[in-house]
């Protein structure tokens, strides 16, 4: 378009770049790409006219590794997909295997799964909001507030699973261990305190003029495109689609809880930001009910032989509503001890499909905000 010929050298000699266009490679060592992620951005002035995401810097072929190990062997690897939400990844994988092998889960384990998944959602959303504010240039303060809350939840995870981030807690047909004594009460305390943090966050940020100016009308993802581009999770719901797998699939025991699905009408960064806040409020409601109702009983089906686990031939796709969106596992079994095909449906990657549409015509400073509002973890994007 404004290609005026001339060699690269001339351009350098002329001092600086083509005045019309500037090609900037954002990443992989950029402070706001949330990991080793690159975007080839073409700018006119500061306006983005082209953006190509480049993936694969963290690729380790997780799927190939899983196809070479046993079913149980890849459970710890799922922790490393989205290292912020290891428990939901665990659950999605366990759910797919349970579908594949036709296993039932004891009720207490279902409750524990709901509790850990919603706690994961709380800490993921809180951190996402903190990171997004960090991308907006808020000097770490919102992030530190979010991390303060996350610490409490990670402490809970630690006492339940023995690990803070790589929890590796779910098993096929249940959970690895029952909650230690006093854990439910501790969780109740954390959940009870959480709304205060949400109120504080909302009061400080939701009506902040700079936050509104920076996020409203920025990175709009229209409803049609959101569905068509397979966006999921808060990104999809911010675009006005009230689609929540917890409601449609009714997996686990989610049908026993009364919660609502907030929906945004604009599909911009502010909607995605606020939606996470509202979702956290609903999660708190689920958690309060689940911690109240949790029954006694075993946490794992004793008949499942985890050591030499060989489901019969067949295939299954299991998905759950992870904090970042629909995380699914597609498994094909050929009757042996390791899956013939193991596929992760990574919400972080697929939510990036429409990244270019969201960024075109915006300023370069908005790109990092849009990326932050999508909420990606590169461990999952690149697998």
């Amino acid at each position, binding site marked *: 378009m404004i290609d005026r010929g001339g060699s690269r050298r001339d351009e350098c000699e002329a001092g600086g770049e083509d005045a019309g266009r500037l090609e900037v490679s954002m990443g992989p060592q950029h402070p706001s790409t949330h990991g080793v992620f690159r975007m080839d951005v073409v700018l006119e002035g500061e306006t983005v006219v082209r953006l190509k995401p480049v993936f694969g810097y963290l690729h380790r072929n997780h799927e190939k590794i899983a196809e070479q190990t046993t079913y149980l062997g890849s459970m710890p690897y799922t922790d490393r997909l989205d290292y912020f939400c290891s428990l939901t990844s665990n659950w999605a994988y366990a759910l797919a295997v349970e579908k594949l092998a036709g296993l039932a889960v004891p009720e207490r384990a279902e409750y524990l799964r709901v509790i850990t998944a919603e706690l994961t959602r709380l800490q993921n959303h809180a951190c996402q909001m903190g990171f997004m504010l960090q991308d907006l240039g808020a000097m770490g303060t919102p992030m530190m507030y979010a991390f303060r809350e996350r610490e409490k939840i990670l402490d809970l995870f630690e006492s339940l699973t023995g690990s803070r981030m790589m929890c590796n807690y779910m098993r096929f047909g249940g959970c690895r261990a029952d909650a230690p004594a006093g854990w439910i009460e501790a969780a109740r305390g954390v959940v009870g305190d959480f709304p205060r943090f949400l109120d504080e966050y909302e009061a400080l940020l939701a009506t902040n003029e700079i936050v509104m100016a920076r996020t409203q009308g920025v990175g709009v993802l229209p409803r049609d495109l959101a569905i068509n581009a397979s966006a999921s999770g808060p990104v999809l719901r911010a675009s006005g689609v009230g689609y929540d797998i917890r409601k449609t699939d009714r997996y686990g025991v989610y049908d026993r809880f009364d919660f609502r699905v907030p929906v945004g009408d604009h599909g911009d960064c502010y909607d995605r930001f606020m939606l996470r806040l509202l979702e956290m409020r609903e999660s708190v409601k689920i958690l309060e009910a689940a911690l109240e109702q949790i029954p006694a009983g075993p946490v794992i089906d004793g008949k499942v032989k985890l050591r030499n686990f060989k489901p*019969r031939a067949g295939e299954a796709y299991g998905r759950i509503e992870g904090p970042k969106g629909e995380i699914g596992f*597609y498994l094909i079994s050929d009757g042996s001890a390791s899956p013939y095909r193991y596929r992760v*449906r990574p919400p972080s990657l*697929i939510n990036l499909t429409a990244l270019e549409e969201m960024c075109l015509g915006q300023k370069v400073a908005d790109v990092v905000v849009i990326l932050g509002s999508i909420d990606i973890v590169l461990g999952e994007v690149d697998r």
Partner: protein
Amino acid sequence: MERLASIQARIEAALPEAKLALAANPGASGQHSLVVEAAHLEAVARRLRDDPELQFDYLSNVTGVDWLDRVETDKVRVKREYQGEEIEVEESVERRVPGYLEVVYHLYSVARGTGPLVLRVRTGNRTDRVDVPSLANVFRGAELQEREVYDLFGVVFTGHPDLRRLLMWEGFSGHPMRKDYVEPDDYEYEPTPHGEVAAKASRRYAKRGQP
């Protein structure tokens, strides 16, 4: 299965030339699938999306599966002459079943809350007839996932707007998720400027009188 059959009937009624086949899933999940011929894939997908009764508007998951060439042994009874007399013996005959690459689509309906509908399409073989029409023009969500399948399995999606490798780097040869892929001893090795840098450094050290 019944629901899938009715979907099949509905699509075949709308698109008479497209022949769908049911593929049963022997496992416990009960997720059976429809096998579509590659030539009609795009039309079928469009129909699935736009049909007011079906409205499978959400392509959740696209993935590839590599089915290797199989050798199946059939037992046949043949008559053989043995020591002058003709007897009937049982013999196993090896039959080579050609392998293929398969692309699996998981469709959901956001409008109706139904799903998953599993759609499968198969390539002609694993070597030269590996092209499948792209669904990126029907479902934008297929864009990155098809690139991934192309990258890791080598399925060529015709009509894809930007078919490049997704996860592996440009210039990488081979498709790592294929079952017969042999890993190189060292992924990391590639010609780097390191040799040049080292040579430069050694020149400099030589000047300073060091080895």
